[in-house]
């Protein structure tokens, strides 16, 4: 099995290598030798050369008889052979094969291909491209002409996300959809960690509920990370309540509608594409070397030195010559690592660099589609094999997907569709790779060598734990089946019936095996997991969803169009799970429950929820000029008790396309679309974390697994069952509501070259579930949550895009910018206690002290303290001296303190920044020229403050076990000219003292500017000329090279990545690094 695995692995590498060599060769020859490349790749093809060539000329006009200036005329299939029409609309093109075709194209006009058939004059009337006007976007339970949309909708097409070396759809959307915000998940860049996202900023700060966008895949709720990106036809993001209210109480935070590809009538088309990715860690902080580390630790230790002069000499000696002695034995013949200061090792290791390195990923996709008028099919398969960055103890992930869709016309009036989609995701990593691992690997001392003097890995290197300490595997399967009927009893009346069913299965396995370290005499001893164990987790979910809706369109003549839709939707979700574990694995090769001996533990449970809703929509349209839409949804959910289960959610929107007014008629070529939009709507939120928020329960743990824990007070040598009172439930609990007002403007100018869209919104999250008014401690249990928070999010989204053709150069620029900020408008914190939100606070406000500077001398500090006669800085700490921070007396009370810790009495604290990412932007540049295409994508945040804390920022923070030194930490205050590192009076960091946090307050000096711009992607592709490829029945062959996360501009501290702020279970920044990817691949269409 292992052998076959390797074979496949190497085969893939070779394919990757082949393509790589081709690209290298292209580079070396400078001039791209197309013929050579072609021969290499498609050597089976035979070149066919055409015969006679002639000159063709003519005039191009539009429908009104105006000449078209600058239209492109090329020989079909040879983009490099062409010309442009002149100021009179004339063109002339020589050397045209008499049997060739000419392609005429112009922005905003329908492209036409005319066979030359020996003619020397071809005059052409180009038609305005009605497609632009007919372009439709997917909206709730239907589609709508883009020009008629009155809500706030962003559309993303397949080509916007194609060809990027991304691992899932979420990654593709970052920076592409204005108003969508992304944050790195708790696992950092680990393969099983997905990015989280929201639409228009935090939707709720309510505890116990979430406002994550509803993701619908072909009309059914689904997992955005469990779909093959190649299967996607388009994505619509519904941002305001008017657009999303049709989905009722599951959609208050917006909706992402994913439509997958369907079969198309016509010949069978086969597409194969792949890519091979070379991955390396991104922005990994650098640990200080052993000597710098030791000096820092000596200075950070408040009492005396940890490293004696002799030890420092040994460290230096080893740095010079790594054959010098690096480790010393303890009295029990183990290698001393941590404790006995005289015997500490003197290695020089960067643990992050040791553990994280390069890796390789590959992806292959194939699709077939075609059909007749009666029956169309689409079948696709995808295989993604991701390699992780771990250097020891491989981590990897595979995704397999198989998708088949059949659409059939049963009769003129009935269409039936069936779609089955299977996705499997396999994740496999060392069981030791958890939060503790990141915690350890980021704080382990550089003096610990990777290998001991006998050549074994040191126990503390954690390498044996990664390689031999057991595995965590997770298999996730999802099978989605969708059956749909479309009945059209009479023209313009459609009845849709959709029956959707999804089953999900998870099986997770963890085993932890005994690992050994080696003593001085090379004898192994137990290092970790003295008791081996195995645990299994199984989870199954069933989701059944019915959508029945019908619409009728009626045109009344005189340009009045009325469209009505009513429908019904229900969802039922149920799940069950089983957990089991046992200890003492008998066979390390087969760690299963059946092969483990002792301490069986198990848990299992069931859950369910359901929703039901009735909805309706009326659209009115007068010649595309006046537009109106009304939505209503009456929604019920199982999450609430009967008396408040049902709720009505309305929304309204209006549009006015001024460009359609008569007075604008003459300017439509300059301004063809100028639409003002406004909408208002309200939605409820039933997305409570607890599926039964109204039921009080007793927590009774009879097992020690799966989130349940037995007691730790042993009885008779065993952990006992434990029970405790469950959380209180307030009688006042009810729905959260989200109300959105949106005003927008869409414009299309200059024959469709320039498109723009602007939205301003205000979203009120009302009656969010939050902490009750602070209650006296005599309650003795967590205060039950009630609906008592209001928040208002407001902001804007702007998209500007430009698309044009200059000769053969077709290019486009899309810039999007979005902003939102959230203000708390009601919060049960009348005292405005700063530990919590309060009325008027903005989400992300950072309260901190104002730094004057680091005191460079004792005298400077003493003078400063003397200027504060009412207590100096003693409220913040004691023993102030040189190298400590001098804080500013903001409130002028003659002392530095935190006041009463409230917004009204904050003492010397003030709002020094805000951590909400503001002005998120994306810039997409693309261009194509003679078969080459280039895409450059930059994404970033223009404004963000951040106060990082913990060891990764401060270095010495919480004693020697919780401190570590990275290179930037070495810029710390030293006032001793004889210090081995020299004096450093203008240091960034204050004098280190890992026991005393008085200098490590949130303060202006250390507030980070977390704004950034990241070169997210650059893709360069080349499509071989069709004249070559067609001869071997390849209609399209494209090769490309693409880079992801190529560069970043930021002022943020080097310890952090701007996309990974606030991540790390064991402390800020202690997580798996993000990665940088270079990929190459090809796409062949037959």
């Amino acid at each position, binding site marked *: 099995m292992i052998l076959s695995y390797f074979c496949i692995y190497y085969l893939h590498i070779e394919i990757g290598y082949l393509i790589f060599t081709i690209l290298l060769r292209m580079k070396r020859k400078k001039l791209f030798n197309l013929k050579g490349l072609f021969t290499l790749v498609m050597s089976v093809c035979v070149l066919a050369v055409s015969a006679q060539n002639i000159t063709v000329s003519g005039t191009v006009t539009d429908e009104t008889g105006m000449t078209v200036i600058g239209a492109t005329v090329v020989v079909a299939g040879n983009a490099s052979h062409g010309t442009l029409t002149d100021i009179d609309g004339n063109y002339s093109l020589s050397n045209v094969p008499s049997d060739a075709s000419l392609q005429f194209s112009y922005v905003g006009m329908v492209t036409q291909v005319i066979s030359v058939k020996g003619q020397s004059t071809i005059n052409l009337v180009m038609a305005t491209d009605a497609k632009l006007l007919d372009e439709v976007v997917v909206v709730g339970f239907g589609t709508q002409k883009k020009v008629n949309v009155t809500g706030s909708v962003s559309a993303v097409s397949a080509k916007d996300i194609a060809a990027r070396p991304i691992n899932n759809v979420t990654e593709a959307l970052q920076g592409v959809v204005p108003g969508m915000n992304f944050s790195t998940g708790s696992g950092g860049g680990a393969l099983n960690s997905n990015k989280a996202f929201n639409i228009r900023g935090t939707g709720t700060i309510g505890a116990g509920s979430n406002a994550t966008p509803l993701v619908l895949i072909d009309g059914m709720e689904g997992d955005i990370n469990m779909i093959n990106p190649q299967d996607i036809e388009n994505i619509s993001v519904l941002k305001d309540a008017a657009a999303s209210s049709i989905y009722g109480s599951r959609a208050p935070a917006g909706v992402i509608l994913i439509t997958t590809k369907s079969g198309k009538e016509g010949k069978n088309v086969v597409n194969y594409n792949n890519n091979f990715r070379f991955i390396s860690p991104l922005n990994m902080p650098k640990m200080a070397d052993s000597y710098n580390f030791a000096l820092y630790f000596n200075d950070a230790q408040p009492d005396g030195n940890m490293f004696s002069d002799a030890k420092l000499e040994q460290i230096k000696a080893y740095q010079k010559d790594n054959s010098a002695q690096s480790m010393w034995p303890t009295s029990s013949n183990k290698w001393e690592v941590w404790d006995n200061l005289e015997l500490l090792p003197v290695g020089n290791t960067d643990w992050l660099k040791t553990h994280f390195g390069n890796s390789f990923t590959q992806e292959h996709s194939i699709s077939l589609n075609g059909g007749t008028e009666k029956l169309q099919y689409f079948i696709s398969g995808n295989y993604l094999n991701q390699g992780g960055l771990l250097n020891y103890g491989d981590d990897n992930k595979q995704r397999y997907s198989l998708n088949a869709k059949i659409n059939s016309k049963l009769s003129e009036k009935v269409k039936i569709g069936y779609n089955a989609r299977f996705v499997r995701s396999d994740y496999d990593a060392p069981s030791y790779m958890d939060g503790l691992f990141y915690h350890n690997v980021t704080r382990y001392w550089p003096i610990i060598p990777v290998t001991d003097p006998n050549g074994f890995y040191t126990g503390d290197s954690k390498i044996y734990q990664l390689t031999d300490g057991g595995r965590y595997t997770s298999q996730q399967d999802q099978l989605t089946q969708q059956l749909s009927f479309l009945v059209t009893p009479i023209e313009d009346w459609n009845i849709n019936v959709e029956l959707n069913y999804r089953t999900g299965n998870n099986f997770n396995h963890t085993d932890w095996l005994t690992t050994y370290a080696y003593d001085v005499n090379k004898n192994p001893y137990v290092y970790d997991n003295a008791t081996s164990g195995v645990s299994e987790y199984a989870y199954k979910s069933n989701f059944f969803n019915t959508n029945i809706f019908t619409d009728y369109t009626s045109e009344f003549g005189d340009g009045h169009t009325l469209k009505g839709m009513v429908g019904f939707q229900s969802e039922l979700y149920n799940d069950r799970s089983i957990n089991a574990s046992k200890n003492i694995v008998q066979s390390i090769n087969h760690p299963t429950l059946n092969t483990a001996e002792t301490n069986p533990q198990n848990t299992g449970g069931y859950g369910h929820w359901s929703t039901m809703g009735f909805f309706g929509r009326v659209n009115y349209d007068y010649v595309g000029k006046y537009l109106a839409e009304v939505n209503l949804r009456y929604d019920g959910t199982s999450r609430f008790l009967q008396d408040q289960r049902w709720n009505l959610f309305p929304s309204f929107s209006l549009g006015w396309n001024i460009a359609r007014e008569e007075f604008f008629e003459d300017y439509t070529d300059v301004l063809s679309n100028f639409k003002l939009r406004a909408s208002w709507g309200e939605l409820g939120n039933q997305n409570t974390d607890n599926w039964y928020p109204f039921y009080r329960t007793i927590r009774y743990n009879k097992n020690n697994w799966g989130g349940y824990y037995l007691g730790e007070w042993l009885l*008779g040598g065993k952990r006992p069952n434990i029970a405790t009172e469950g959380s209180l439930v307030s009688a006042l609990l009810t729905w959260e509501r989200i109300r959105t007002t949106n005003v927008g403007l869409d414009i299309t100018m200059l024959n469709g070259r320039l498109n723009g869209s602007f939205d301003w919104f205000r979203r009120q999250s009302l009656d969010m579930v939050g902490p009750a008014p602070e209650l006296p401690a*005599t309650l003795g249990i967590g205060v039950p949550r009630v609906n008592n928070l209001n928040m208002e999010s407001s902001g804007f989204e702007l998209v500007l895009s430009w698309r044009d053709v200059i000769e053969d150069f077709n290019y486009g620029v899309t810039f999007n910018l979005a902003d939102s900020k959230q203000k708390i408008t009601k919060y049960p914190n009348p*005292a405005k206690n700063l530990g919590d939100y309060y009325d008027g606070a903005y989400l992300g406000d950072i309260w901190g002290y104002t730094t004057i500077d680091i005191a460079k001398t004792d005298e400077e500090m003493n003078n400063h303290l003397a200027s504060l006669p009412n207590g100096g800085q003693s409220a913040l700490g004691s023993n102030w001296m040189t190298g400590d921070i001098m804080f500013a007396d903001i409130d002028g009370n003659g002392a530095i*303190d935190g006041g009463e810790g409230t917004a009204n009495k904050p003492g010397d604290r003030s709002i020094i920044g805000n951590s909400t990412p503001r002005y998120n932007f994306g810039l997409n540049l693309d261009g194509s020229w003679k078969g080459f295409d280039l895409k450059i994508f930059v994404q970033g945040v223009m404004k963000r403050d951040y106060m990082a804390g913990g060891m990764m920022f401060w270095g010495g923070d919480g004693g020697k076990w919780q401190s570590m030194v990275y290179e930037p930490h070495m810029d710390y205050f030293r006032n001793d000219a004889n210090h081995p590192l020299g004096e450093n009076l203008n240091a960034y960091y204050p004098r280190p003292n890992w026991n005393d946090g008085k200098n490590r307050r949130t303060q202006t000096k250390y507030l980070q500017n977390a704004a950034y711009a990241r070169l997210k992607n650059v893709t360069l592709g080349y499509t071989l000329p069709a004249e070559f490829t067609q001869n071997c029945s390849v209609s399209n062959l494209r090769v490309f090279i693409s880079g992801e996360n190529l560069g970043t501009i930021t002022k943020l501290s080097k310890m952090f990545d701007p996309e990974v702020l606030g991540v790390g279970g064991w402390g800020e920044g202690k997580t798996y690094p993000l990665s940088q990817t270079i990929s190459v691949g090809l796409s062949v269409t037959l």
Partner: protein
Amino acid sequence: MKKINILTALLAILSIGLVSCSDFLDREPLDQLTPGGFFASEGDLAAYSINSYAFASIQPGQYGISTFGYDNGTDNQAGPSGSNIWVPGEKKVAASGGAWNFSSIRQANYFFDNVLPKYEAGTIVGNQSNIKHYIGEMYVIRAYAYFDKLQNLGDFPIITTALADQEQVLIDASKREPRNKVARFILDDLQKATEMLKDEPPFGKNRISKDVAHLFRARVALYEATWEKYHKGTALVPGGEGWPGNAEDIKDFNIDNEIQHFLTEAMKDAKIVGDKMVNNLTANTATREGMDSNFNTLNPYYVMFADVNMEKYPEVLMWRQFVDGQTTHNVQMELERNGGSSGWTKGLVESFVMSNGLPIYDPASGYKSDVGVNNTLDGRDSRIVIFTKKDGDVNYYYADGSANIYTKPLILNSSDTRAITGYTIKKGKHYDPEQGEIHHKGTTGSIVFRGVEAMLTYMEASYEKNNTIDATADSYWRAIRRRANINEDYNRTINATIMANEAKGDWGAYSHGELVDKTLYNIRRERRNELIGEGMRWADLKRWRALDQVKNYHIEGFRFWNTPYETAYVDANGKSLIKVDPADGNVSPESVSEYLRPYQIVSINNSFYNGFNFIEAHYLEPIAQSNFRQTSTDKSDLTKSIIYQNPGWPLVAGQGAK
């Protein structure tokens, strides 16, 4: 067309079927218990009560020396840094949290609210005596929680039911009751407990027993009696000058009657346990090591504190067990291998008399000298001898039977493994190399209640009450001294006691700034010496009001200067590692003392360099700021709260007491 209609109709029926299903949206939890159905059986009660155990003990997974270091920061024992208790102004009011917390009290009250009606109705299924026992346990648990409040905060609300989440109800319930009422309430709970608990609880002494309730009841009564006696007249006692409470609440309060009452109760309950203990104290063979290389017991008294199974010692009334594969700790990693970041003080070591019963300063004592730990401990009360690591003692045994030897105090180690004073703690130390060297292998038990305390309590309570050593106290005292291998005749010690000498190293020599009488002092000395390393000292010092005189007090350790230790710390090249430097030295200078002063080594970052100082406010903890806000009629005005702050403390976070 027909076909299609049928199809459409079928689909419509299917969907209507879903709609009409009226209970489609009724979805209750499928796998969780609701409160109504719980507390129905013996097992439910057992599971609830064991989850409420919050007794001071070694904690699972704990590093450091745990309970054996709980006396750090007192005159007994020193940690790597002093406590901010000793720097007026440095200990500050917290923004939130702290002792003003009712979660464990609610946990008990919720139990009573639900269980007592069912118990009285006789509807709880199972062994009725066990059911009764578990209810009794919950009374001990509530009493234990309340005693913590009494010690830390004094006056405290008395709440006997799980309150609803209604602000006014909770504010009303926040009213502080005078501490004597709190103490009486605790004694009432414990009285009920003694009536319900079994002598032999299910699972033996891992659970609360009747004797535990008696012992604890005596502890509480003695605490309150002596507190009221010594703090009498101050703001820290109801009715005292400056007491912030409400005069109406102490209408019938007579402090002297109250003291007598508590002393009587203390004697009564202490005697019940003491009489069982007096002839059952664990034998002390006074051998240098407690175990041989096969971990066989050489000295039962020593091993009692480090045994993996403590069930066999009658003196252990309750203990917490640790089992590999279930829960373990890491306490032996420090106890066995290093200084544990702690150490006995010079004052403590010197308070132990010679085995002939004479204090070391007595001309006839035979005390050798304090040059070297072995000399210091030669001929002394065996408790300090067996519970201190002496040069040449065994740290632990290797698998081959050879020993890892403690050669000298590890005073230069980094602070978490350092022998802070040079006198290294040996109490609770096992000899198992696995527990010492491998993480999460610690399985030595943790004593929660030890019967000998009842005897000490009786001795002290009876003397405080009657000013004499009665026959019971006499027999107890002799038994304790006999077990310590010192001359039984306590009068020999009393007569030789010079209070001025004792006062130097024993804060317990004082109450309210004055020296106590020799007999009382020697009762206190006995208590101190018997309970070293058991975390009882701080409570004793507070209730005796023994800290008023602490001014610029320097904690000292072993004698370093002018002993062989001066030259014992060298590197591989024979170069001395000793450094005297207020910036980054590692020992205190000879100029300040011949004895190691752990807080006078380095002056930077050190608030204790000039010694310990105490102010009265520090006898009680401050209540955190948030509680005044939460109980105030005007949330932005802390002074409108129903709660009053403890004397000397401000309301606002970040400020210290005056």
